[in-house]
């Protein structure tokens, strides 16, 4: 079993860890890498922040002015009448 992983492998595991539980071996490899690598520790913060931003996006977007075009609204109502 290898003892060290590259930054690319570590970043892959950081993303994977958000979505699925890592095996004990992968967890150990990642933790060891993070202890020694400031860049990947920062990357971990970025991944987690990104996720927080997007998880809040839908609620926050209710304030946005994204509207269905009137033409589309009219077309749908016409289609409903034709059913």
């Amino acid at each position, binding site marked *: 079993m290898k003892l060290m992983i*590259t*930054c*690319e492998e570590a*970043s*892959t595991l950081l*993303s*994977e860890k*958000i*979505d*699925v539980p890592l095996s004990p071996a992968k967890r150990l490899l990642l933790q060891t890498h993070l202890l020694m690598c*400031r*860049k*990947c520790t*920062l*990357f971990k*913060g*970025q*991944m987690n*922040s*990104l*996720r*927080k*931003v*997007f*998880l*809040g*996006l*839908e609620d*926050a*977007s*209710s*304030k*946005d002015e*994204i*509207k*269905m*075009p009137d033409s*589309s*609204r009219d*077309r*749908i*109502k016409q*289609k*409903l*009448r034709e*059913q």
Partner: protein
Amino acid sequence: MVDLNKSTDLESPVEEVSQWVEEHGDLLYRFARYRVSSHELAEDLVQITFISALKDWQRFRRESSPKTWLVSILRHKIIDHYRRKKPASLEDFPDGGEAVTQSAIASEEMVQDTESIRLNPEEILEHQELRHTLRECLDLLPERFKQVFVMRDIENESTENICRELNLSVSNFSVMMYRARLLLKDCFLKKGFPSLSKNKY
């Protein structure tokens, strides 16, 4: 055969569903717009949703609100759309998806931006123009990456459910999520997010 124009209550089904178009059309359109890459497709999916709602009107038990019911129909229509195209997998990309992330994936470069995107989620979400930038970046994702990403990181759906609904292996899912996240991070950097929270840390 159900006569959809026959009134069973104060309103006919067509009148009621037309009223829902007025009340919930924007919300459904916004919901679809996040999940597919073109406004034309979003409009089509919303139209299909309302027509389905009309056809299933008698089965709507009103235990949930019309809004909740309509969103649920739309959500299934979007998943159907992605399922119909082809099995979602990295095989959609001849090179396994490498090219789309080439700029973001370089092992050293991707973590070199130590001064950048220390995102402050609350602050970003407060700004309409930044939310707009988030959507722009989402639209740059390949469509399948976008669908997987939206289900996971916007809807907070479980990995297990997403893989089941989209017929994806966990391994393909993980690669798609990783690449989507890298592409989004790369996009934020290009669009100047670094300046946002410079003074916050």
